[in-house]
């Protein structure tokens, strides 16, 4: 096994792939979205409920490669219970990491905030797989928008 292989398929990623968090669709939700990554045929359906400006609940179902499924699991773990603004800020940070082509310079603060999502740093070296890692994160932000965030909640806060 070469080093780069290990750096893409981190143990954390494989663990999330085998035992995904927040897997399953909750019955109560404000928005449901379905996102597809045509490269790998990855799919994710995501439901989310907002309350008091936070991501009160989020659940998902999907199939696809380990990167897409593990990343969605890590994202769920990170954003549930967080203020929506923070969840969106995290998504931007993760997007930046994924677009870095393996050259991201993360501060200690970034690493603290991204937690397990740091494990996907190696994926950023493989442009063909970046979309896999972003699938769940993109679904989350579009579900947040669909739930009305940015049109009503943000205006009120």
């Amino acid at each position: 096994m070469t080093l780069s292989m290990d750096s893409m398929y981190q143990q954390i990623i494989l663990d999330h792939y085998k035992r995904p968090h927040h897997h399953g669709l909750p019955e109560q939700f404000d928005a449901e979205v379905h996102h597809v990554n045509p490269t790998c045929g990855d799919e994710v359906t995501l439901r989310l409920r907002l309350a008091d400006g936070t991501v009160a609940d989020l659940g998902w179902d999907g199939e696809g490669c380990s990167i897409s499924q593990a990343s969605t699991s890590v994202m769920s773990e990170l954003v549930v219970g967080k203020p929506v603004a923070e969840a969106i800020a995290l998504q931007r940070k993760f997007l930046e990491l994924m677009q870095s082509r393996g050259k991201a310079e993360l501060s200690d603060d970034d690493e603290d905030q991204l937690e397990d999502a740091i494990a996907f740093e190696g994926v950023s070296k493989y442009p063909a797989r970046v979309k896999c890692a972003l699938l769940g994160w993109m679904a989350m932000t579009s579900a947040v928008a669909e739930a009305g965030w940015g049109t009503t909640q943000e205006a009120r806060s």
Partner: protein
Amino acid sequence: MAFDVEAVRKDFPILTREINGVPLVYLDSANSAQKPQLVIDAEADLYAHHYANVARAVHTLGSEVTHAYEGARDKVAAFLNARSRDEVIFTRNITESLNLLAYSLSNATSFPGAERFQLRPGDEIVVTEMEHHSNIVPWQQLAQRTGASFRWIPLDDEGRLVESAIEEVITERTKVVSFVYQSNALGTINPVKRIVGRAKAVGALSIVDAAQAAPHLPLDVQDLGADFVAFTGHKLYGPTGVGVLWGRYDLLAQLPPFLGGGEMIETVTMQQSTFAAPPHRFEAGTPMIAQAVALGTAVDYVTGLGMNDIRDHEKTLTAYALEALQRIPGLRVIGPNVAVDRGATISFTLKGIHPHDVAQLLDEQGIAVRAGHHCARPVCLRYGIPATTRASFGVYTTLDEVDALVRGVEKVQEVFHR
């Protein structure tokens, strides 16, 4: 003389490459085959020494290049055992060959003398469930344009056509039957003569997509009996950008053109145009000259190796690989699981591991395979899988490379099961 794969490998410069520090194991020839030095040189030589436009210039270069281009047509005609060189049309690829037919057929609606090619509501176009998108989408579109119905012969659980359905689906209403010789996703080799025979019996046009067959077995259009046979150059160790449509001359002579433009005409006035005879009627504009010439070289190359010997070599590889792969726990071959009526293309799934992860981890070991739905998404839907990993072999593939694949897959499992 026995097939000498080590000698063949020396013809392909790319095979000396290393990927991630290990020698390249190229098992993606069904996607696109690598090029022998001869083919690379043929293209460069034309540009370096003989280049001009074809069929238009009276100068020496124009004459040389026309001779080379038309010479390539002769080579392809001989490769296919065509009755006449005028039955060979150069296209960009298999996709254009099939679209050329589909559009020429719909142009028949307003073309004098082409009544026999017209499609109307109530007529049917038949394909099979194992087609790649190039042999599905143009016919769906033709059905939409003409009001004809689009039907298909279904797949059985083993990855073969449901035999009894050939007679049921191809009926007196059928006007076009277009089907694949060898499946790119399953490796299945179809009973071509049987399907062509049924199409003839009901008076339908028969079209054989030989993109995946041409590199692997002897192709004899007279023996197959079909009306049209198409293939692409880049899978046959030739350049990209050139494909072939062969058609029976009497049909081509009545078929309306697809693209209009230079070199496909007989006379042009501001009021109207008349068209050249085949094959030039179907080759509008400046063609892919150097690529067609180099395809001629590729055809010479495989003919030199011997299509029967190539088929035997690849059959040995396929039988060996099917046996070795199916010993791996959790590996399921999608397609026929024995080397009977099947080609050197093996699709498989691994329990609990997505094909893109398999392909990525194999690439780390220098092994190039394809992962995905192989532009044949209905096949994946039929077997209830999102995608497959596909290993495909060519003239330069060795048994050692099959062993490397098997070891590679085992390593992928180690990574995922740690």
